[in-house]
């Protein structure tokens, strides 16, 4: 395909901005429109559950780029404008205000919406955290709250519980797993994380499914587990996962399956690409489809999409990576740990609270690396994973197209 004369990027956050910047960095001079539902300039989400919630950063510090840098991109920023429909065949996007935007290449970068469970919403004092606005509201109430319950034991739930605890609240974290972030960290390390939380005074209620709220006069007073007594709370944060923001794509003609389904080039249809949290792509190294919800994926995938828009033909086969900061511990994870992997310490010392752990599969091959307060050393061990995630050399077309 020749270079498109114009590009429309839907979603003006980490991934959308990175597509735009990367196109320009590669010398693209065509017209670029960056459409985003949120009012303000692109900002970063990881600080929301950490520095912004804790109040150590003003909201402005999360801005990804200064006004000058954005202006220099020479892109049309259409902010505060929501896309409501796409026609994939003609690559036309309709917006809430009725405008129709057509482009030769369209990038879908609309990220995720926080999931709200029917039984766990609707009362005052119940929060989710996805946007800067959410963070501001949550912080305001956290400052007054006495008893906080965080429903959800994934990355976001664990970070919110950690920050709320550091702010002095009485915090209970509950969720269906035996230990927080077990799905992401495996059993052994998740137990260490549980111990860290407990040492800092976070009450853990593992193996618990919550399905309802207790309220009085429309305000939350607690959460109700499926079995057992209610947990009292004057503030509840639900961090029970997110859903890809594809509601607006229902009649687009694209395949939607927990995200926008793409090939290994991050292409959803002719001239249509997806990047970031919303994109499900075929990882040639792993031989399966994957959707990653982390910050570095948003930019890396965006850069690859920019390259492919300009005519390169590269598969996206990253070594997945995310980090999280909780209660003074910095955790970095490269690769995808599985719950059954064997864990061995390859550097540092668990007793000292600084180590690098390697995860091995049944055949003893490394599948993931985790750093616990050892970011640099963890990155150095990433090398051992490259073979595992590299795309296999091209094989028969019949096998490759699966």
């Amino acid at each position, binding site marked *: 395909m020749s270079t498109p004369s114009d590009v429309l990027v839907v979603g003006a956050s980490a991934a959308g901005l990175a597509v735009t910047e990367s196109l320009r*960095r590669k010398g693209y001079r065509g017209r670029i429109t960056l459409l985003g539902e949120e009012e303000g300039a692109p900002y970063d989400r990881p600080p929301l559950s950490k520095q912004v919630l804790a109040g150590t950063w003003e909201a402005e510090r999360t801005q*990804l780029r200064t006004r000058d840098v954005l202006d220099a991109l020479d892109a049309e920023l259409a902010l505060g404008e929501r896309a409501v429909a796409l026609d994939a065949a003609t690559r036309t996007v309709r917006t809430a205000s009725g405008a129709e935007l057509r482009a030769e290449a369209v990038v879908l970068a609309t990220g995720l919406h926080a999931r709200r469970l029917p039984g766990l919403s609707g009362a005052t004092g119940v929060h989710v955290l996805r946007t800067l606005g959410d963070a501001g509201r949550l912080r305001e109430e956290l400052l007054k709250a006495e008893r906080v319950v965080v429903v959800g034991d994934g990355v976001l739930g664990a970070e919110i519980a950690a920050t709320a605890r550091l702010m002095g609240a009485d915090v209970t974290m509950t969720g269906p797993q035996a230990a927080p972030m077990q799905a992401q960290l495996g059993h052994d390390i998740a137990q260490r994380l549980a111990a860290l939380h407990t040492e800092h005074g976070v009450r853990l209620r593992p193996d618990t499914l919550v399905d309802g709220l207790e309220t009085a006069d429309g305000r939350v007073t607690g959460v109700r587990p499926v079995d057992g007594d209610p947990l009292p709370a004057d503030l509840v944060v639900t961090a029970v996962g997110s859903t890809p923001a594809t509601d607006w794509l229902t009649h687009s003609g694209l395949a939607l399956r927990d995200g926008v389904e793409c090939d290994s080039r991050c292409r959803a249809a002719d001239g249509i690409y997806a990047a970031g949290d919303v994109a499900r792509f075929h990882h040639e190294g792993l031989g399966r489809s994957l959707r990653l919800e982390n910050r*570095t994926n948003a930019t*890396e995938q965006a850069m690859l999409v920019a390259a492919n828009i300009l005519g390169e033909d590269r598969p996206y086969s990253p070594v997945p990576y995310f980090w999280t900061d909780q209660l003074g511990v910095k955790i970095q994870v490269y690769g995808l740990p599985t719950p059954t992997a064997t864990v061995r310490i390859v550097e540092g010392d668990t007793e000292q609270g600084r180590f690098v752990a390697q995860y091995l599969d049944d055949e003893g091959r490394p599948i993931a690396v985790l750093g616990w307060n050892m*970011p640099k050393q963890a*990155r150095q061990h990433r090398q051992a994973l490259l073979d595992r995630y590299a795309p296999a050399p091209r094989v028969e077309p019949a096998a490759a197209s699966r």
Partner: protein
Amino acid sequence: MKITVDEEKCCGAGQCVLIAPEVFDQRDEDGIVILLDAAPVAEHHEGVRESAGVCPAAAIHLHEDA
């Protein structure tokens, strides 16, 4: 080209070091970025631009015409 880094924003992701190891390193203790060369030669410029674009904390600032 001149580079500045905001150590306080850096989250130690090390993406910059993966792309431009001649220009960036990380501290051994906490992984915070170390700028090895604030005014790199032209052959490293492309890598530095990519690092600044990829940095998940927007901690790397470029002054292209400095």
